[in-house]
């Protein structure tokens, strides 16, 4: 099976500061893949490189075509949705308007409404707050909104940047349960970058470990969980 997304020699950074030093990784359709890494390793930069927020050198192949250095507005139209670090809530719009915004690239109005209903069922808290300004919600609620918003564009791949950041453990668990459910029900491929490895490895099939801009370990999630150095560094035991 050819991979849905592959990166080869991915290099990127900010101005004079190089953060990624030539990454290789790939994701197959329907998978949940995790990239683990500490602060400063380059996790966010990796996702930004894929979704076109920063310039890159090297190759990124999506469904056989190169998408390196494409603009974000075009990348999402190719079927990749990015849930940014810190949620990226459009704070001044209501919850419902955020979801409409998520469906911006779509023209099938009725289906958009149907999808909205689906996500309201999955995330009832969002339904409760549908007309409220999104910026007023708690971190956990905003995270759910960010994910629902990304899914509104019916992407084939969702990039999630540290979804557990700043969330209480119970909320995080609920969140990851939902993610697993979405992947099972819709087959949406997911690439999750996380510091908090436990839950992420639980719902994923494969993972990579990113250190200082380089992939240092790759393998199945089972293998990663068993690997002692990974356990010590990212799983805390």
């Amino acid at each position, binding site marked *: 099976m050819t991979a849905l997304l592959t990166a080869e020699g991915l290099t990127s950074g900010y101005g004079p500061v190089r953060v990624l030093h030539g990454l290789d990784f790939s994701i197959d359709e329907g998978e949940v893949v995790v990239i683990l890494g500490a602060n400063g390793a380059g996790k966010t930069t990796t996702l930004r490189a894929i*979704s076109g*927020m920063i310039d890159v050198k090297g190759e990124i192949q999506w469904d056989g075509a190169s998408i390196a250095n494409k*603009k*974000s*507005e075009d990348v*999402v*139209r190719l079927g990749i*949705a*990015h849930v*940014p670090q810190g949620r*990226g*809530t*459009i*704070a*001044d*719009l209501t919850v419902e*308007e955020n979801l*409409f*915004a*998520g469906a*911006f*690239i779509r023209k099938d109005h009725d289906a958009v409404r149907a999808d909205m209903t689906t996500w309201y069922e999955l995330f009832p808290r969002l339904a409760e707050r549908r007309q409220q300004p999104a*910026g007023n919600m708690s971190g956990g609620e905003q995270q759910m909104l960010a994910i629902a*918003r*990304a899914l509104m*564009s019916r992407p084939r791949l969702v990039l999630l940047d540290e979804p557990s950041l700043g969330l209480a453990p119970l909320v995080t668990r609920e969140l990851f349960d939902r993610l697993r459910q979405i992947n099972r029900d819709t087959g949406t491929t997911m690439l999750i970058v996380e510091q908090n490895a436990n839950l992420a490895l639980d719902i994923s099939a494969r993972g990579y470990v990113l250190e200082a801009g380089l992939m240092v370990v790759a393998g199945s999630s089972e293998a990663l969980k068993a690997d002692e150095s990974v356990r010590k560094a990212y799983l805390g035991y």
Partner: protein
Amino acid sequence: MDLFLDRFFLGLQQGAVYASVAMALVLIYRATGLVNFAQGEMALFSTFITWQLWDDGWNIVLAIVVSMVLSFVGGAAIERFLIRPVGEVKTNALSVVIVTIGLLLALNALAGWIWGVESKTFPKIFGTDFVNIGPASISYQALGVLAVLAIEVVLLYLLFQKTKVGLAMRAVTSNSESSRLVGVRVGRVLMFGWGLAAAVGALAGALYASELATLDTSIMLQLLIYAFAAATLGGFDSPVGAVVGGLLVGEVTVMLGGYVDFVGEDLRLGAAFVLILVVLLVKPEGLFGRKLVKRV
């Protein structure tokens, strides 16, 4: 009592024009987060185009419409080629201010160079008749301006709240990065915002010149200050605020000018300035604006 009513209606009439320009300012601010110092001179240039068409024999209303269309294109072009290359407002505020000031100077001088500095006669769009309401009379001009304003507000409200473009504009103002991530073509939204503001400005300029009955290169700067006062009072991100603010500024300055000798005619602008300061001290987000939360 007569005098009071006359002044009251005069205040509304002038206020309506301030509100129109304030609307353009609010539009650009909502779409781009930018205060456009060149708004007045852009409107001036548009109004000269309107005048030119009318002078060449066109019907004044048609002239205004054509000028609005041309201004839309011009405004979009300005955003694309002059404003965008300079960078984001948040990181380069000073550069952006300088660019809009440069635009202010250039447009004003260009208008003077093309059309000369002598005053031109500008037609009364709504005629010169009056309507009697009790002891006072209000001109058709005033009624017409208020009616146009009302239509503008409704249309803009519908645009922002009920259309996809409006949603995109509000999203971009709130979080342009996230807007990009959902596929909003931010550049196009910005161009649209500027184009729309330029068109609104063209309309406001024509209404103002029609009220003054003359047109020359100096009339817009004062109007800009009054419009700023209106937008500040109403809240820079609220079209409704622009209207209410404009009418209030019109009333307050006319009343103060009429009843308080100290203020007189000369200091009406000063009164507007003090009003700006007071509002910013007491309620910086204006009457209808959202409270600005400083995110750390």
